[in-house]
């Protein structure tokens, strides 16, 4: 999928849009931003799948991307599912990347890479929630491959790099004391922009003991959050994201 938003005479609109394969996109009517709701019509990911998303918020535009449902990484018979996402926010633009959870099933093999470039004077909010096995469904043993990388650059210069590699018996690794103490729902969230310092205080008031927030630079807020399951994760994540985006989340994000 390729999508870019532009702003002309104070109105946001789609500049370019193209999609192929299993990715469908719905654009609900919205005055203040281009909102894109992505949907994987194949019903889930498995070995060998390739997904690519390129999204750009052009100068002064507002672009919000989300997904219609939680994504599922199913048992892979062979090969690894690859997801590549490239996001950019041009000067004066606002970009929100708010996908719902990625649910990792036993036997999944998933390799994700997300690159975000934020121009000076742009604002970006990014979240990636992941659930390792649905605890309520008794999915307590999860093994496989899970590699996830987020890189943020400013005008090409690296600002931030986060990489998770939980390959092997993930459920056992998540039981380790300095990893997750058995918590199976994980979210990483970032805010880049002028409100970072003020947001740090607000976000800290919402976070439980299993969540942390810190400024890695004066305009760069990073958040890591763990919870027992996806419901409890959302209980914290929804107010945190509303705080970061200063708006009500797209409706699929409701608790």
């Amino acid at each position, binding site marked *: 999928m390729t999508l870019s938003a532009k702003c002309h005479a104070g109105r946001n609109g789609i500049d370019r849009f193209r999609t192929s394969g299993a990715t469908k996109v719905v654009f609900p009517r919205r005055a203040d931003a281009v909102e894109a709701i992505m949907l994987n019509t194949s019903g889930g990911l498995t070995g060998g799948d390739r997904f690519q998303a390129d999204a750009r918020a052009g100068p002064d535009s507002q672009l919000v991307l989300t997904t219609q449902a939680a994504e599922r990484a199913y048992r892979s018979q062979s090969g690894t599912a690859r997801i590549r996402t490239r996001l950019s926010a041009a000067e004066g633009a606002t970009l929100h990347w708010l996908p719902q959870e990625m649910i990792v099933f036993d036997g999944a093999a998933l390799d994700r890479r997300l690159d975000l470039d934020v121009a000076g004077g742009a604002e970006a909010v990014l979240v990636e929630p992941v659930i390792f096995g649905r605890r309520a469904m008794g999915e307590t043993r999860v093994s496989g491959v899970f590699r996830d990388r987020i*890189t943020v650059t400013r005008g090409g210069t*690296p*600002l*931030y*790099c*986060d*990489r*998770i*590699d*939980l390959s092997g018996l993930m459920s056992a*690794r998540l039981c*380790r*004391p*300095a*990893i*997750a*103490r058995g918590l199976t729902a*994980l979210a990483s969230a970032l805010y880049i922009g002028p409100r970072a310092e003020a947001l740090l205080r607000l976000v*800290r008031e919402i976070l439980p*003991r*299993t*969540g*942390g*927030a*810190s*400024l*890695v630079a004066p305009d760069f807020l*990073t958040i*890591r*959050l*763990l919870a027992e399951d996806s419901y409890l994760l959302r209980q914290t994540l929804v107010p945190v994201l509303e705080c970061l985006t200063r708006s009500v989340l797209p409706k699929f994000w409701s608790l």
Partner: protein
Amino acid sequence: MVMAAPIPTIMDTRPMPIDARLLTLTQWLAPGFPTGAFAYSHGIETAIHDGWIADADGLEAWLRDCLTDGTGRADAIWLRLAHVVDDPLEIDAKARAFTLGHERLREAERQGSAFVATVNAIWNLALPDMLLAVAVGRAARLAGLDIDATVALYLQAFVANLTSAAIRLSPVGQTAGQRVILHLQDLCLQVADQTRGADADDVFGNAFLSDIAAMRHETLEPRLFQS
């Protein structure tokens, strides 16, 4: 985890080579070397405060994760890269981008600057300010020190420093603390071994609660440590 670790060297009767470079290395990585290491707990102060580390076994398990999935493994790779590349500042920039939190960055930054100031003054090097692991890797290269030994000793110094922090925070006694360091000896060697040949793309950080504890330390009151 109360089992006694075998003492790995006790039956090993091979000669143990020693030369001045090994003494230089232990001087650099000794707790008395003025990097200010004693001021940093790497988030362990929060973990103890929250009851996540309650005793020596808890500390050992926590440090195990820091070595295999957290800062220990990542630092081992930065050290190795700083030892081989032409421009260590490139590695320093990557290591900074990878550091997840304000106090974590400050911990690595300030110890790195203090290390650089001392080795520049005494060993006549001209290193720029860099994060600790990058600075040690670079200095080791310039002084002709063996990189495998440097990584293993660096990891043990990391473990020993955090054990000493836990002792000061009191859930771990002096003797039990030394047992923790001994139990982690093999793991320090393993991580040193496994990171051989790794590049920046191989760095990862899965020690989520260690990272979260470090972030939450910024607002912990009262506190003894700077991280």
